[in-house]
């Protein structure tokens, strides 16, 4: 049973559009949600993260929207650029419990110029 689910599996947008990547989770004890991006043959790198004390986290063109009641979050990338093309992983962990990050299966984003 996947604890962290992502959709869509792949997404293509045009340069300048807003890309929306979705994530949902099962475990209500999760209290830390980082998004990592990974370029081919490179290491995953932390992009932006949110904790449930807030329902929105913004960093430049990247914004996380968080809905605790529905156990859903989404990553919005405004004014998408070809350099944003990567695989985006939503992850979750519980500070009071397990030591591990649970990753979703990823969304492969392609931004067409």
């Amino acid at each position: 049973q996947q604890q962290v689910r992502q959709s869509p599996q792949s997404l293509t947008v045009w340069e300048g559009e807003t890309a929306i990547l979705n994530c949902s989770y099962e475990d209500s004890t999760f209290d830390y949600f980082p998004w990592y991006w990974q370029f081919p043959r490179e290491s995953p790198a932390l992009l932006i993260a949110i904790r449930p004390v807030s329902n929105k986290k913004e960093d430049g063109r990247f914004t996380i929207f968080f809905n605790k009641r529905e156990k859903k979050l989404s990553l919005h990338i405004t004014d998408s650029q070809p350099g944003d093309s990567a695989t985006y992983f939503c992850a979750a962990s519980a500070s009071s419990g397990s030591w591990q990050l649970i990753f979703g299966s990823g969304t492969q984003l392609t931004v067409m110029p």
Partner: protein
Amino acid sequence: GPKVLQIPSHQIIDMGQMVTLNCDPVSNHLYFYWYKQILGQQMEFLVNFYNGKVMEKSKLFKDQFSVERPDGSYFTLKIQPTALEDSAVYFCASSLGRTGNQDTQYFGPGTRLLVL
């Protein structure tokens, strides 16, 4: 940002041989992790290590796997003996702490292991 280094970047070995993957975590970090990623899939947690001990391991962390960090040197993942299904990219990660803003895990570039 903080850098995690991994050596080697690629390793090809025959099934049944032993392999050691090396990780040089961020210098002041205290928590160390190994994740496994099969091509095209998500990363899956293998093990977490703190204060010289395995704190948690997943079902993917088979009996053939072991980790150690002798005297603050490399954090290593050893597989003995290897099996075909061990072929994957192994990512090392480290974090300063577990809570608050210290729990960000920084990942290395991965070691691509191919077992023939």
